[in-house]
């Protein structure tokens, strides 16, 4: 397995290089750059813009720029944000805690609700309850998250006043105090609920289908024949087998943890990686955009590896070699 892991890790390198080349070229081919766009005639100095473009090398051919960028990148220099005028690493690191927090809370919601719904639907397939759950899941899958976000804000923040509508923390609270943490949790709940409850579809339906399938297998019939109680059959024998495929998702979730939710974060003005990514693309902040892209690519590949390894561990029938 160690050999397998190393092999997989090594094979990531060319893949990452390829991804970076494609993303970099696409990014540079987008019209405009960090200095283009809105011009304020009384406040914009064309000489300065030209100077900066020259200094940052925007006038060089894309391939030259790519070579410069990648050689800095592998040496650990991720570049400087043209918007924030700080190292890209700093800008990103500042946002990671918020994103992680939001992602973990929303994943907990997803897991809990998907688990309950999946178990119920799997145990009582083709009943009214199952159909309702399926309907809900596909609706949630179909509704764009920005619509869900705005509706949630209007109902829960503006009408009912249960949750704050924007930001990640209350204004003026000192870091480290009890109120600070309470406020953090209060701010994360609504976006996390929107994200979590809208994302249950795949988990629920996978779990349901697996439970139904396993319910028809021989070992279940044997257990029934022995007189094992229905609840024990479902909660112990079937569930254990049905969870295995879900582990694959865990790998994907690693990337989700960081990538956050681009749109949801923006609507809730939740300062995380997602909103930063969106902003860096629209403002052509190449250093930040490329760093986030590479981070996410790596985590996605890494997550896949973790999923494969976990699969091998929980299901001894699968051999990784």
């Amino acid at each position, binding site marked *: 397995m160690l050999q397998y892991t190393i092999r997989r890790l090594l094979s990531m390198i060319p*893949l990452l290089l390829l*991804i970076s080349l*494609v*993303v970099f070229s*696409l990014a540079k081919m*987008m*019209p*405009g750059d960090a200095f*283009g*766009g*809105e*011009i304020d*005639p*009384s*406040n*914009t*100095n*064309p*000489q*300065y*813009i030209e100077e*900066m473009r020259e200094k940052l090398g925007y006038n060089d051919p894309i391939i030259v720029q790519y070579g410069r960028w990648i050689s800095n990148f592998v040496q650990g220099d991720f570049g400087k944000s043209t918007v*924030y*005028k*700080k190292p890209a690493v700093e800008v990103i690191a*500042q*946002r990671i805690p918020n994103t992680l927090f939001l992602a973990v809370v929303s994943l907990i919601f997803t897991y809990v609700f998907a688990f309950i719904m999946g178990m119920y639907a799997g145990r009582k397939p083709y009943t009214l309850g199952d159909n309702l759950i399926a309907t809900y899941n596909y609706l949630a899958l179909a509704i764009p998250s*920005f619509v869900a976000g*705005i509706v949630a*804000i*209007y109902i829960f*923040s*503006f009408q009912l*006043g249960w949750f704050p*509508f*924007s*930001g*990640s*923390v209350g*204004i*003026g609270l000192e870091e480290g105090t009890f109120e600070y943490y309470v406020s953090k949790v209060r701010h994360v709940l609504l976006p996390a609920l929107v994200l979590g409850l809208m994302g249950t579809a795949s988990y629920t339906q996978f779990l349901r289908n697996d439970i139904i399938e396993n319910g028809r297998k021989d070992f279940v019939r044997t257990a029934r024949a022995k007189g094992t109680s229905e609840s024990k059959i479902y909660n112990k024998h079937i569930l254990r087998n049905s969870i295995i495929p879900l582990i694959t998702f865990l790998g994907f979730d690693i990337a989700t943890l960081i*990538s956050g939710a*681009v*749109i949801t974060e*923006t609507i*809730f*003005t939740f*300062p995380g990686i997602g*909103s930063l*990514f*969106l*902003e860096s*693309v*629209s403002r*052509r902040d190449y250093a930040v955009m490329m760093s986030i*892209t590479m981070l*996410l690519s790596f985590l*996605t*590949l890494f997550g*896949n590896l973790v999923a494969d390894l976990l699969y091998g561990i929980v299901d001894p029938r699968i051999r990784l070699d």
Partner: protein
Amino acid sequence: MKKSTVWSLVMMLVLAVFLAACNNDSSTKEKDNSGKEDDSATSTTEPKEGGVVTFATDQAPEGVYDPAYAGSAVDADIQGFTTESIFTINDELEYIPNYAKWDISEDRLTYTFTFEKGVKWHNGEELTVDDWVFALETLADPAYDGPRFNYVEDVKGAKAKKEGKADSIEGIEVVDPYTVKITFEKVKINNLENLWPNPMPKKHYEGIAVKDLGESKQVRENPVGLGPFKVKKVVAGEYSELERFDDYWKGKPLLDGIIVKVIDPSVATGAFQNGEIDIMGIRPQSVKELTALENVRIEETNGVSYSYIGLRFGHRDKATLTNVADFDKFKSKELRQALLYAINRPAMIDAFLEGKATVANTVIPRTFWIAAEESELNQYEFNQEKAKELLKSAGYVDKDGDGFVEDPNGQPFKISFGHYAGPAAFEGRSQAIIQSWNDIGVKTELATGSLIEFNLYNDMKDNDDAALEAFFGSWSTGSDPDPSGLWGNNSEWNYGRWVDDTNQTLLDAGLSVEAFDKDMRKATYVEWQKHFNEELPALPLWENMDLYGINNRLQGVHINAVGFQTDVHKWYVAE
């Protein structure tokens, strides 16, 4: 699985690009600056102390607190609370002394500035001219990496310092801690307007090399300014908390503090309704929703931005930095006038801007003191018959009977009109313009077949793309009335590349020594506006109004064309 990884990344990128395109309407230049006092809404109660108000913005600040390094509009809004310039701009957009007065020498080259005594920085230091000289020297330093060198380049010796030939700027002479003489390279009417007006806290920045200053903690995290409020706490991407500065030189501010909060524009109305935000610049599209709220008033003012249709006359030669008139499609003045007569501007304003704009017939917004009277200008009132007559007289007639005119040589005539993408109203107004021109028989098509993504559109304008024969544009002019940056013969931002002798002569006259006589300067610019109004090198459409939504609890706000931040120390809360 690998395939799906790459695929998901590509999808994410595509999505991001798409969203970026949607997002760009925030940068379309229909900015929310402001103009005129609304007496009815203010002064309902006596001003009193205390309270905190929230100013909302839809873009996150970059967190650069020294104006010499900042570039974004949101950072400028925060600086409007925390910093203050040596001069300010009044409602007529004239430059008036703030904490410094100035005298101009006989030869008009030397300005002697006298600072008020007792003006305090947030850290308790007293402001002296050294702080200002420090700022000017920094801007001219070869290692300075901010965008503002052009604000000192007219001072004598600043260029030499920038090029490393001098250690300090020759034209600055400190007389005493409150008096400084600044000598300029050349006599120019707008030397003052183009002089950097923001001192830097010299003591606070002590020991930092110029090349590190822009990234230093002193600029980025604990800034020191002169304004009525000081930065207390910043949560990046979310909010900035400002607190009252008790030693503010014009007197203690009434409010305890101001929160600058970032919100998504889609929830602005709800946030206003709930009293979570107190003041925000708004778009015409939001007026209807906000008017329905009882606790919110809308204040409007004539701003300094206008929209126009640019017409192409040539291209820009990037090697010589000159504009070359070599495109003849719009050479006929009658044609250009006909194109403007064809457009029903009041109807468009009602349909797409909720009536919150004024028809413009020149490109000098009427808030400026140099603006020409409407009676002196041709009004170009909507008249398609007149447009058709003008076309006919210029030789544009339909010879082949297809319903569209041919050019005077009998060749098919067609205009390709471009517009950038944005809110739904953009689709409507571009179609309205195309329809108007088709109605008078001038065949018009939308360039590239659809609205163009904003960054791409700017690129196309910069590069004189052939598809943009006529194009929609907007400018926000700032407070300097001189239009030569936008319409000068060789100006970079004269996107239509209109080259005209009378134009340049008049623009130069407006900046000449004679223009120190204010009446003469105004007369020159009125002359220029009449020329523009007659020639129509671009078709002026309307001046945008600056609109603000303000919660009724917030009083004492004075709005003008420059912005909403005049005398913020007089803002107060009435419950």
